[in-house]
């Protein structure tokens, strides 16, 4: 099922069709029904395929055969499906065909979005008003809990701090690197950028595993200190510190990990934005009497402002969802819990669907303003054209 790619075939299919097909699409309930039908056929057939090829999930089957069948049935099959449905629509009378055809291609994607996104959202929202086993409604109890009990409040406070600090730090450091790297020679620029970008390739869990050794601390009697940070610290004459155990700074230490991961992303995107600022704009500013710093703040920065918004909002969404870093590094102890990590804990450790769902809804709502900013910015950009 996962190999159903969003259909983008429309363009390649349209040219041969006579023009009048597009000019007056038919309406009416029958057409509506047909639209639903064609939208559902492809996902339905795929589900049937999925079940029919259940041997693909069998461990005993020949792996190579599995791969072969999956490739042929998955890639070619999906193509054949779209093609066949397009032919079927050809059989309809002209105007009806024109009305129905788009749904052959857009329909399956819409169905999948509904099944995988809309339905879970609705279901989660319903869960959030139910008890731990999702057997009875409890009204706003779950929400009252997450906004009154201290562990959740700390999680919300921490998440807010993460959202304030991490995107700001990642964007500022990324912007600084992008600007400075831009002044380097071609080769040293790409070398420097690769180094900064490298962490992007590491999974959050992997990165956390690396940073465990950075912050590692062993209480007396539990062996030698192996942490890099403690090595530096003791080397400077300090006593070993339990970095991740000392609230509230331990939150900051966790954030550093995500900043380290995200800076590369910010830098790469901002770097290409900076490069697209025309040189003569900068030269004009220099001739107008601007110092290099003024050129940067008054010309470069405003020119890349919309890119900064994109990078910022993207990072904000990532930060709201951060779970793995906290889970791996501290498990949410010592006052380091965040909303997403609490959500997982409620759902799977505490088996409390109600509170878990309420936290999920909280996350969902928290991301909405960010999405609005993004959509608004996108519209503005479209309007500029």
């Amino acid at each position, binding site marked *: 099922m996962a190999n159903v790619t969003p259909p983008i075939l429309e363009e390649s299919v349209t040219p041969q069709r006579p023009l009048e097909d597009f000019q007056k699409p038919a309406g009416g309930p029958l057409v509506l029904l047909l639209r639903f039908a064609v939208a559902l056929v492809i996902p339905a057939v795929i589900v049937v395929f999925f079940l029919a090829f259940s041997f693909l999930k069998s461990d005993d089957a020949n792996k190579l055969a599995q791969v072969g069948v999956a490739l042929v049935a998955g890639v070619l099959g999906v193509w054949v499906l779209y093609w066949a449905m397009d032919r079927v629509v050809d059989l309809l009378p002209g105007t009806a065909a024109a009305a129905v055809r788009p749904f052959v291609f857009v329909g399956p994607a819409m169905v999948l979005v509904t099944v995988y996104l809309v339905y879970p959202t609705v279901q989660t929202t319903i869960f959030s008003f139910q008890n731990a086993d999702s057997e009875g409604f409890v009204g706003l109890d779950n929400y009252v809990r997450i906004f009154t009990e201290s562990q959740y409040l700390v999680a919300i406070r921490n998440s807010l701090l993460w959202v304030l600090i991490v995107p700001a730090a990642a964007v500022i450091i990324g912007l600084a690197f992008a600007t400075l790297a831009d002044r380097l020679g071609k080769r040293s620029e790409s070398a420097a950028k690769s180094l900064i970008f490298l962490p992007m390739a590491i999974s959050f869990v992997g990165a956390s595993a690396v940073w465990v050794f950075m912050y590692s601390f062993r209480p007396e009697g539990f062996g030698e200190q192996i942490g890099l940070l403690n090595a530096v610290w003791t080397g400077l004459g300090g006593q070993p510190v339990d970095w991740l155990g000392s609230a509230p700074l331990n939150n900051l230490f966790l954030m550093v990990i995500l900043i380290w991961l995200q800076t590369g992303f910010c830098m790469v995107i901002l770097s290409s934005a900076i490069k697209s600022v025309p040189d*003569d704009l900068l*030269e004009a500013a*220099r*001739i*107008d*009497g601007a*110092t290099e710093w003024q050129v940067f703040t008054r010309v470069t920065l*405003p020119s890349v402002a919309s890119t900064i918004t994109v990078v910022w909002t993207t990072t904000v969404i990532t930060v709201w969802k951060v779970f793995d870093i906290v889970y791996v590094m501290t498990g949410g102890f010592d006052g380091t819990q965040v909303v997403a990590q609490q959500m997982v804990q409620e759902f799977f450790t505490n088996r409390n669907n109600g509170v878990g769902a309420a936290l999920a809804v909280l996350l969902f709502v928290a991301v909405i303003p960010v999405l609005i900013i993004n959509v608004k910015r996108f519209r503005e950009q479209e309007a500029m054209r």
Partner: protein
Amino acid sequence: MAEVTFEHVEKAYPNGYKAVSDLNLKIEEGEFLVMVGPSGCGKSTTLRMVAGLEEISSGALSIGGRVVNDVAPKDRDIAMVFQNYALYPHMTVADNIGFALKLAKTPKAELKAKVDQAAKMLELNEILDRKPAQLSGGQRQRVAMGRAIVRSPQVFLLDEPLSILDAKLRVQMRAQITSLQRDVGVTTFYVTHDQVEAMTMADRVAVINRGILQQVDPPQALFDHPDNLFVAAFIGSPSMNLMDARMEEVDGRVVMHLGSQTVAVPDEVFTQRPALRKYVGRNVTVGIRPQDIDDAALETQHPQDQRLRSTALTVEALGFEKIVYFDIDATPVFSSDALDMEEGAEEVMSAQNTRVAARFDAVSGVKVGDDIEVAVTVANSHFFDPESGLAIRD
């Protein structure tokens, strides 16, 4: 206001390529100097050196008597108009014009007054609140001009400021820029590849090619007395007809063989150019401007021995005149550099024949394929040494 002086200025790149060689030039105070040349000739590099955007490899560049080789652009007190205008897209027209003043910490009231005044000169008052994206090409151009004049700088630098406008607007802006420059009287260095701009706008034109300055003169002088083949071929449209000629003395009178045809060379030619005497009996490169060739049918008084015969190959009727192309069998001479920029140069070139362009009066009845007789005003011809390409004068 100040004069700009180039003394042995050179621009060499690390790979050894010399964009500008040994440039000596003085732009007088308040002068409108246009530097013109084909693309890649070093004219933009020269301008950028004045702006401080390009380092000077050797020599001295001074603005108002001060050597500015190592002075940053912002401290040179210059204003520049870029080819693509380089307007700040996030600022309004008013902010664009006032940006330099704002950086110079000009008091708000004074800044506004100056911006308003500049806007008034350029008829931008109505659009001061708009962003560059909402402006037409001509408006953007005027904003770029406004940004330059508002500062009352020592020198204006204009880098092909009209090249991205359409033809009609270009003609309008040409006049507007020159009158603006006369009004403010600021020393202006203008770079273009368009010889019409150079001729129409400049007090003096500097022709440059391959990084070497060819000639600096007022437009008319440049047109009437080109120093060498390049300038001769570059200035004027259609280009000067350049071909090999052999001068001989026959019965005490000098004639010039153009391929198989012969025209007489009147004595006044030699009184104007005594040095030409030495070329009698030798080959010389002769240049005849298209306007010095007319339909003999209309010039019945023209001496019989200053005429050529051929067949009209192309006739371009422009309304006020006809451009007629025909071949004569003299060996053509090309200023190879000029060829690069002449569109359709290959068409003009044919191995043995010279394709000659002539400007006939509009009343001429010549049609394609007609046998024609043309009257050549030999006295107006230009003569160049075939070896050096330099004009033969005195």
